[in-house]
């Protein structure tokens, strides 16, 4: 399974880009600290709003901060929020969706009611209110809030899939053997949903990064933390667009777009794994030209 997942160029590119940003995020503090003059928080009053130069590769902000250092530091913040919120959202989706689909009946009615409630809830205003209360408590809380409000659609997907898998004969057969529900859920049904869960997780990462940027743009973020979202928000507040300071908002914006594209590419690959029809198409296109395919 792993070998075939890595075969397509989409998955390779996607994983490559995500891997690059993850490395950047992990090595970020070390990178910025070891390169002299690169401190994402230091305000250099001698270099305010400078375009890219040899000294500041991506220029400086209106506050005299180095944009490259901020982008690296921002990767840390954005990816942290993205991954943590995706983990929380996916875990909640599984915990609600799996039992709902498997047990059916009254359990399903209650759990499904809960997910429907979260689907119709006006999530953005709620996040705004909750995040407003939690202001200044760090990226952890932002990730928790995004994850907590973003699981409901996934739960419905998992529920539908679990319902279909649970009705297959092998689950019934293993139940007849006397397998307890816990084992049926996690050893018979759940492994069949890995493709869905992987796709949902990646979708969650994209959603988390975007939501964090969106919230930060609206001013809801930890003022001390640096993420791509806070960078864009600062640029907006200082009307970087009007001043023509493109180097301030393009790097973080591009990074968000890149991560989202990469996750989508990996998702395509997972989709191809789960849907054999797409896979055969890929194999046909990969045949050398001039062979019997054309």
């Amino acid at each position, binding site marked *: 399974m792993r070998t075939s997942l890595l075969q397509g160029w989409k998955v390779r590119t996607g994983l490559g880009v995500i891997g690059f940003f993850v490395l950047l995020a992990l090595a970020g503090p070390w990178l910025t600290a070891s390169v002299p003059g690169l401190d994402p928080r230091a305000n250099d009053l001698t270099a305010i709003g400078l375009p890219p130069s040899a000294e500041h590769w991506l220029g400086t902000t209106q506050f005299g901060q180095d944009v490259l250092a901020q982008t690296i530091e921002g990767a840390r913040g954005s990816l942290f929020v993205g991954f943590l919120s995706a983990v929380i959202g996916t875990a909640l989706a599984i915990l609600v969706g799996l039992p709902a689909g498997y047990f059916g009946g009254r359990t399903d009615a209650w759990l499904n009611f809960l997910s429907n409630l979260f689907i119709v809830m006006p999530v953005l205003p709620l996040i705004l209110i909750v995040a407003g209360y939690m202001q200044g408590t760090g990226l952890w809380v932002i990730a928790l809030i995004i994850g907590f409000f973003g699981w409901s659609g996934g739960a419905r997907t998992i529920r539908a899939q679990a319902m279909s898998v649970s009705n297959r004969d*092998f689950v019934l057969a*293993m139940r007849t*053997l*006397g397998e307890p529900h816990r084992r049926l859920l996690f*050893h018979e049904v759940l492994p069949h949903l890995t493709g869905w869960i992987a796709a949902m997780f990646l979708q969650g990462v994209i959603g988390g990064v975007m939501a964090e940027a969106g919230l930060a743009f609206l001013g809801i973020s930890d003022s001390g933390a640096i993420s791509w979202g806070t960078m864009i928000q600062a640029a907006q507040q200082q009307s970087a667009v009007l001043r023509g300071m493109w180097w301030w908002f393009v790097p973080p914006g591009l990074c968000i777009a890149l991560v989202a594209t990469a996750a989508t590419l990996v998702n395509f690959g997972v989709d191809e794994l789960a849907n054999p029809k797409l896979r055969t198409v890929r194999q046909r296109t990969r045949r050398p030209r001039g062979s019997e395919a054309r």
Partner: protein
Amino acid sequence: MTATTPVLSAVDVTKHFTVRSAVGARSVVRAVEGASLDLHRGRVVALVGESGSGKTTLARVLAGFYAPTSGEVALEGVPVRQRRGRVERGYHKDVQIVFQDPFGSLNPLHRVRHNLERPLRLHHGVRGRAELDRRVRELLERVALTPAEQYADKFPHELSGGQRQRVVIARALAVEPKVLLGDEPVSMLDVSIRLEMLNLLDRLRAEDGLALLYITHDIAGARYLCDEVVVMYAGEMVEGGPKEQVIADPLHPYTRLLVDSSPDPGRGARDRERLFDADADGLGEPPSLIDPPSGCRFHPRCPFAMDVCRTQAPPRTDLADGRWTRCWLHHPTQETE
């Protein structure tokens, strides 16, 4: 029928399903009505009928998946209690089921070994690796999957339909049940391996004294394997008795139709049409179970239907040598005709 207590019996079991249409109208599907069945140690009972006659529903009631709407299932004479539609866990220590589809009844993600080890761990507390290996090998050898070491580590997709069904049977046997319910266990297999599977089931019945319920629509297979035949039509049992008598000399017109539908080279092509005075299309279809015909459920298709058949359901008439039928033709009140 013997005088001993049956291992598993259904006593007047009725199963209705309530279905709701999109607009909320409720209707009741009368899948099984008043079915009684006894399974004895070392004996095979065939349950025959066309699709939709309630065979599988009855098997699932017996397997404990559904609680009967009325009537009861008794294991060795003791009624089985059901709590909220689920049987108590010990029940499946004695009753196991083999499904029709060998491709669907094995989880594609688990090796053969996993499937056999789980029941050994759950029901016999087998823990040690060496002991597990030995028991798995024994099971595979019993269902003639040899060399066992080679099969134990295969995934279901590496096996043929017949091999999978053997694994399914081995998995059921790992529990060491008293009753094995076979829900059309061979109908999805190639004709060439059906006989082998029937012989395997026959051997298990002889060696372990398993009580077998063999559900099928294949009269020839039933005749080969079974001791007793019970015929179902539209959710009701219409005839039962020792297989030779029932198949050679069917009492109920439906049994006759069923027996005559199975290919027999010794019979003329048009005999059935002559008997029922209609061709295959003219014989109609099984009735709707939501709104079954009044009286005898077979009367719209029956060439011998009388007035009484349209209004009153025929009671069970017991005849000599353990045979019985539900048909007004054989009811004592009709003997004078």
